[in-house]
């Protein structure tokens, strides 16, 4: 008999085994939900899938009586555009700081200490300051996301820039390259796939800041909605919303990883 460490499941088995925990989770939920609903049909804690479906149809395909919007799509659009804008700003600033501090000793020496300190400030603690300074509007939420993840991206890019072999930088100089040519032609293109990776890693934190900001001060958005309906114990809305947010997070991550493979095929291999 083979040692268990050498056993590798076949492709079909792998897929089935991978799906098994999900199936179990759903099964456990259905059993629990049925049991509670059998005792009290008005129970709100574990709604059945059909109840959730009805609520979502109402949210997604019937205009709201108060505003006339399709709330689900409105929420999704607001949240995604806030997240996208915040992450985009963070990526641009992080890239600039990261490349400059990673490549130029003068920048590194003057910026690294402050970057370290800023990255230690808990961004959520800055939220009240943002509300006071820029108000409760869109800008405060976008700024929170940007402030929250810029230090991470900047430090990651700085490290990646320093990882580019010195040989390449010396080589470029022996080919006659000046500093800006090295930055733009040698370092920047090699950092772009790393930037996408850094963005993927920082999206988790991005969602956290988005939902936190929406929960505190907003009039729409996925985070706003789940915190709003919490008052009515509307688990039939909260649970699908959480699932939807999870799916969006997965989708964005997947698309970014595909983008990386598509645009930078050379970066999938070890550097030569």
């Amino acid at each position, binding site marked *: 008999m083979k040692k268990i460490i050498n056993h590798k499941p076949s492709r079909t088995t792998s897929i089935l085994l991978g799906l098994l925990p999900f199936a179990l989770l759903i099964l456990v939920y259905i059993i629990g939900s049925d049991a509670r609903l059998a005792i009290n049909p008005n129970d709100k804690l574990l709604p059945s899938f059909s109840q959730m479906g009805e609520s979502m149809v109402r949210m997604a395909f019937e205009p709201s009586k108060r505003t006339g919007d399709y709330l689900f799509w409105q929420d999704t659009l607001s949240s995604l555009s806030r997240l996208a804008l915040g992450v985009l700003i963070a990526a641009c600033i992080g890239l600039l700081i990261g490349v400059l501090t990673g490549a130029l000793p003068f920048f590194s020496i003057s910026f690294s200490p402050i970057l370290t300190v800023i990255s230690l400030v808990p961004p959520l603690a800055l939220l009240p300051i943002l509300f006071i300074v820029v108000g409760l509007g869109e800008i405060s939420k976008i700024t929170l996301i940007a402030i929250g993840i810029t230090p991470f991206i900047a430090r990651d890019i700085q490290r990646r820039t320093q990882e580019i072999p010195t040989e390449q930088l010396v080589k470029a100089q022996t*080919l006659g390259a000046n500093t800006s040519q090295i930055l733009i*032609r040698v370092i920047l293109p090699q950092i772009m796939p790393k930037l996408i990776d850094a963005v993927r890693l920082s999206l988790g934190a991005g969602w956290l800041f988005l939902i936190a900001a929406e929960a505190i001060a907003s009039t729409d958005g996925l985070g706003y909605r789940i915190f709003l309906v919490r008052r009515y114990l509307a688990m039939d809305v909260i649970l699908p919303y959480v699932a939807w947010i999870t799916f969006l997070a997965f989708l964005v991550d997947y698309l970014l990883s595909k983008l990386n493979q598509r645009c930078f095929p050379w970066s999938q291999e070890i550097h030569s």
Partner: protein
Amino acid sequence: MSMIQAKNIGKRYGHDVILERANVNVDEGEFITLVGASGCGKSTFLKMILGIEGATDGQLLLDGKPIPNEPSADRGIVFQQYSVFPHMSVLNNVIAAKGFQKASITGHLFGKEKRIAKEQATAMLEQVGLSHALNRYPHELSGGMRQRLAIAQALICKPRILLLDEPFGALDPGIRADMHALVLDLWRKHKLTVFMVTHDLKEGFYLGSRLWVFDKVRHDPHSPNAYGASITYDLPVGVGKDSKPLYEEIDNQIRPILEVSMNTVAVAETLEKK
């Protein structure tokens, strides 16, 4: 006047002396191979010529003036690895080298300039035998092809001096022989002055026109780094010269690097006697 003059140069890191009292003159067009044990200063010497390390003692002169203290286009380099840009195709690697010659912010070439650069790059890649792989990326190339590309990149800039830092160390013996032929050919064709660091004494003996052996002259067993290495042999070499006895002598002298294998030989010998 000699092109490169080393006047009593040395290199120290704190109390560790790497290189000391090296005195040599190099004329234009020589092909010098540098051999010696690891940590014997041969790569340090190369880095001094390259300009990324300075001498702590003495003077290193290029055309009678102190050598520039940063890399520039007159001294090309090929490292053992990481010498090419992984994000550019073979052709673009060489075109980019051409673009770097232009003093602009990005070094991008346009229009006529780009066309000329492309022609020159293609011709250069043909010389090194890469014309079949113009559109491939470095990660799709074998080790030998990558080094060919690195050489093409360096040569398109028409350097006076070509520095090779163990360029063939990671290649198979057969491919290495091809690369030797290529380097010799390019050296003659482009009238280069070549410095090549190598671990392989045989390569050093038969490839260049002049051989330097780096070794320690003085030893202090209690403080192995108190004395640095220097150039102990400076010989004219090359194809056709009868240098077998000398080869063996030097081989024996720098052999102790391979203490482990020497021990194995000793063990094997004792076993044989029994």
